[in-house]
């Protein structure tokens, strides 16, 4: 056995004898009359009880972290280079959560995809490479245009639209201020 423990999806190799033994058991298992011997005893669980018992025993032997990593690897990596994708659990205000769910449904995307987009934009803005200033200038221009449109008489006639543009402009300016002073 090597010093480094193999990951749970590779495991320790079997000897030729073990391979032959389990090949025979597997062939037996595929027959339609495979099942317990008469009088056999042991746990026979369903539902959450089954999952809890299985998880407790497997995790105790192999390790929770190893098994978590093994099942995470089943999903495609989000990184171009592959590998594990870090996970973050995020708490949101109720109205923010509802808005996110609404927006995601409207775009036929998953809320997690929108959050990833948000992280991408924020990290780009916050990067100290000038890109943030370019985006901030674009946002400033956008906010100014919204305010200008909201102030136009014909826009004011369409009250809901004008009010929403003014609110959006305030919201953009507020977000901008936070970004600049961060």
């Amino acid at each position: 056995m090597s010093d480094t423990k193999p990951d749970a999806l590779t495991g320790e190799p079997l000897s030729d004898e073990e391979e032959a033994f389990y090949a025979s058991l597997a062939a037996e298992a595929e027959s339609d009359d495979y099942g317990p011997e008469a009088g056999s005893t042991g746990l026979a669980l369903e539902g959450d009880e089954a999952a809890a018992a299985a998880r407790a025993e497997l995790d105790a032997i192999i390790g929770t972290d190893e098994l978590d990593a093994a099942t995470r690897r089943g999903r495609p990596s989000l990184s171009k280079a592959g590998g594990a994708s870090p996970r973050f659990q995020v708490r949101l205000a109720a109205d923010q959560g509802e808005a996110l769910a609404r927006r995601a449904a409207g775009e036929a995307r998953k809320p997690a995809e929108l959050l990833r987009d948000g992280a991408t934009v924020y990290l780009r803005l916050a990067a100290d490479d000038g890109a943030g200033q370019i985006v901030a200038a674009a946002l400033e221009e956008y906010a100014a245009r919204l305010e200008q449109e909201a102030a136009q008489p014909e826009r004011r006639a369409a009250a809901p639209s004008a009010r929403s543009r003014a609110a959006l402009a305030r919201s953009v300016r507020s977000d901008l201020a936070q970004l600049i002073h961060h």
Partner: protein
Amino acid sequence: MGTTRWAESADKHGIDRADAVHAMRNARILIEAFGPSRVEGGAPVNLYIGQTIDQTAMLEVLAVVDRAAQSVYIFHVMPLRPSMYARAKAVIQERKDQ
């Protein structure tokens, strides 16, 4: 901590090992000693029935959980057969009645 031991027979049906592990840890049915150990004094075979990671299929997984050796031998993984499901349900009922 122990290790997994994957027999070649576990890969026969082309099921991703990650899906097998997921099905075991999130088993909707767990039956210990579903099959005999075939080794005097050895650990018996456990049956796990659970879903794949993407929850699109149910799997049947057979493994020998050797607590003494801290090893889990996984030797049978395939899409759940109706006949296996029926046998599992019958065993659950039988053991409840014992």
